[in-house]
């Protein structure tokens, strides 16, 4: 299979969906003429023109709300947040309008939007630019959230998100944009990854490592170290989609490993990792031979300093240490 970059996998998904459906329009800051702050939309404006790929002013509440409104008429806006961190200035549109319009209208209206962009720390841009809000948005019924770790998954999930009739928030990662991986050739048909389906990225019998986004890469690295240095065979579950969540994949894995560590770059309080722990204690209590442990970012705003930011984030060594404490 050919191998492509994560950012190119997203671009390919956008390009294919622009071709498939005239209602798909890309909106965002610097997405057109500048080719995207992170070069995700490179070439799309040149190919599709002003109508389909639109540069907006720095007005997130305005253009995201505009996308929500247009979606009520059947337009399918795919909106880039240059950083997911900027969600806060558009929060009302992202939550009250996008998430709830269907419910408030008793199902009369739906909101087929996609909001996408990077949501990660690790690039020394400080607290205001390093948010990981997947748990925050997943906490609102009405929203779907995914956080793909590989080029194939981001392409397949992006295409699914665009075709989905509900709002889907895709959380990418600036540190993954330059990573490469196998992605099926478009000639072999549409590559779609459904929302709500996790992926076993590594099979193992001794412990389950549950992760999403870039933390999946850390979990895989930790699994290698555990295997090589400690003779521990870890299974790595990549959630891919946060809501809908693949409960079965998590429960099935823990049913045979009997141990779990959850790795989640977001802060520990009420995040995705806390949700997974609750799920396991409610539905897998009898399977567990040890407490479920977590590896999160240290519970403070994201520090700028390039000298220590990595120590605030999950990393393979922290995962290994955590596993060794229960295995």
């Amino acid at each position: 299979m050919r191998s492509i970059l994560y950012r190119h996998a997203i671009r390919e998904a956008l390009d294919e969906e622009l071709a498939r459906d005239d209602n798909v329009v890309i909106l965002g800051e610097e997405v057109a003429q500048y080719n995207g702050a992170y070069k995700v939309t490179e070439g799309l404006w040149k190919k599709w023109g002003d109508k389909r790929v639109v540069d907006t002013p720095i007005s997130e509440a305005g253009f995201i709300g505009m996308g929500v409104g247009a979606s009520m008429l059947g337009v399918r806006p795919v909106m880039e947040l240059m950083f997911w961190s900027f969600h806060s200035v558009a929060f009302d549109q992202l939550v009250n309008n996008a998430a709830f319009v269907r419910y408030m209208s008793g199902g009369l209206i739906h909101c087929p939007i996609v909001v996408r962009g990077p949501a990660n720390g690790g690039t020394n841009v400080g607290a205001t630019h390093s948010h990981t809000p997947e748990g925050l948005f997943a906490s609102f019924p009405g929203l779907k959230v995914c956080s793909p770790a590989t080029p194939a998954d981001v392409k397949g999930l992006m295409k699914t998100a665009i075709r989905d009739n509900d709002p889907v928030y895709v959380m990418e990662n600036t540190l993954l944009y330059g990573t490469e991986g196998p992605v099926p050739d478009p000639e072999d048909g549409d590559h779609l990854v459904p929302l709500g389906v996790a992926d076993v990225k590594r099979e193992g019998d001794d412990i389950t490592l549950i992760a999403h986004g870039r933390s999946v890469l850390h979990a895989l690295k930790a699994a290698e170290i555990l295997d090589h240095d400690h003779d521990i065979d870890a299974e790595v579950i990549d959630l891919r989609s946060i809501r809908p969540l693949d409960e079965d994949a998590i429960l099935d894995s823990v049913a045979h490993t009997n141990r779990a560590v959850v790795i989640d770059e977001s802060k520990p309080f009420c995040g995705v990792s806390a949700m997974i722990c609750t799920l396991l204690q409610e539905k897998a209590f009898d399977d567990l031979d040890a407490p479920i442990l977590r590896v999160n970012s240290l519970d403070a705003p994201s520090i700028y300093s390039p000298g220590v930011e990595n120590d605030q984030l999950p990393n393979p060594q922290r995962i290994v240490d955590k596993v060794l404490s229960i295995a």
Partner: protein
Amino acid sequence: MPAKKKSAAKKKQKSSPAKSRNEADKTSHPGGPHAEAEINRSFSDEQKVETFRTMARIRRFEQISLKHYNAGKMGGFLHLYIGQESVAVGTISLCGDHDHIITAYRDHGHALAVGMGMNECMAELFGKSTGCSKGKGGSMHYFAPDKNFWGGHGIVGGQTPLGLGLAYGLKYKDLKGCSLTFLGDGAINQGAFHESLNLAGLFDLPAIFIIENNGYSMGTSQKRSSVYPPGGLAQRAEAYGIDWASCMGENVYEVRAVTWEAMRRAHEESRPTVLEINTYRYYGHSVADANAKKYRSKEEVEKYQREHDPVQIWREILIAEGVLSEEKANKIDQEAKDEANAAAKFAEESPYPTVDDIMTDVYEEVDSGSEAGRTGTHFFNT
């Protein structure tokens, strides 16, 4: 109070710096017509030279920081202010004890203009514990409340209600001062800014919003991000019943004269003003701006540097006035360079924060060990 509408004719009089230099021969003052403004007549020779020194220091500080950024000594973003120095320096030179400053992420110029030291600023860029924010904030988040400088804010437009709040606080406490809130030409399209304008007008607050129009927000030219009313971007203020003015930014005298009018209004009448100060940035949006050479031509940048460079213009004016000599100007510049290099050395030799430091400065009550800080669990590290 009705908004004062500035006529386009009046605006046109405002000379470009190149013009003001040419005109200098004709008018009695080498600094152009604004040099005759009352506020500039009381500007002492010593203060003028200090203003030049501050501009030279900003430029050298940033040039040296760029060198170290490129050498991989810093992380994240580095938004350079070079080309805009006269705006921060001219406006802030007017500030008294109760005047307060807040800006966005392009904050190095404002920081040095309020009197922050190069060492603490450089160390912050390097992410060191000796930095002004102990390495926690980085380039975009400088603060010096002891110097009435409230940051350094990374979210576009996010600082504008805070600037409004500084004005509210001053009025609440019966202090005769004002806030200067700086924002970019792209930032004026954030809702928070519009809400701030309405509140400023409605509550009669001594808030001055200074739009530093450098022509671009990242790769988007000003005309692609906002409709430009006949009077310029500041004219939006009219909708909120607020006074406004627009001027060129490269001549310190002009910046001071126009800003002082707004500050006087704030101090005497507790009324807000919106100013648009036209300027230009020489470098990319940030050093990481991969397209810096694509969305505008090399000629455009070079023309501005040749004809409108604020540091050069101020230097020439002061030399023509006899306040500064070539020799002294060179010496000041050399000292600025030496200071910046010394700051880089200081930063390099300083320690990084420790992992434990990550967990401090989150809650005041926890740091101070108060009863409140010891009641309940504040942190949930895993």
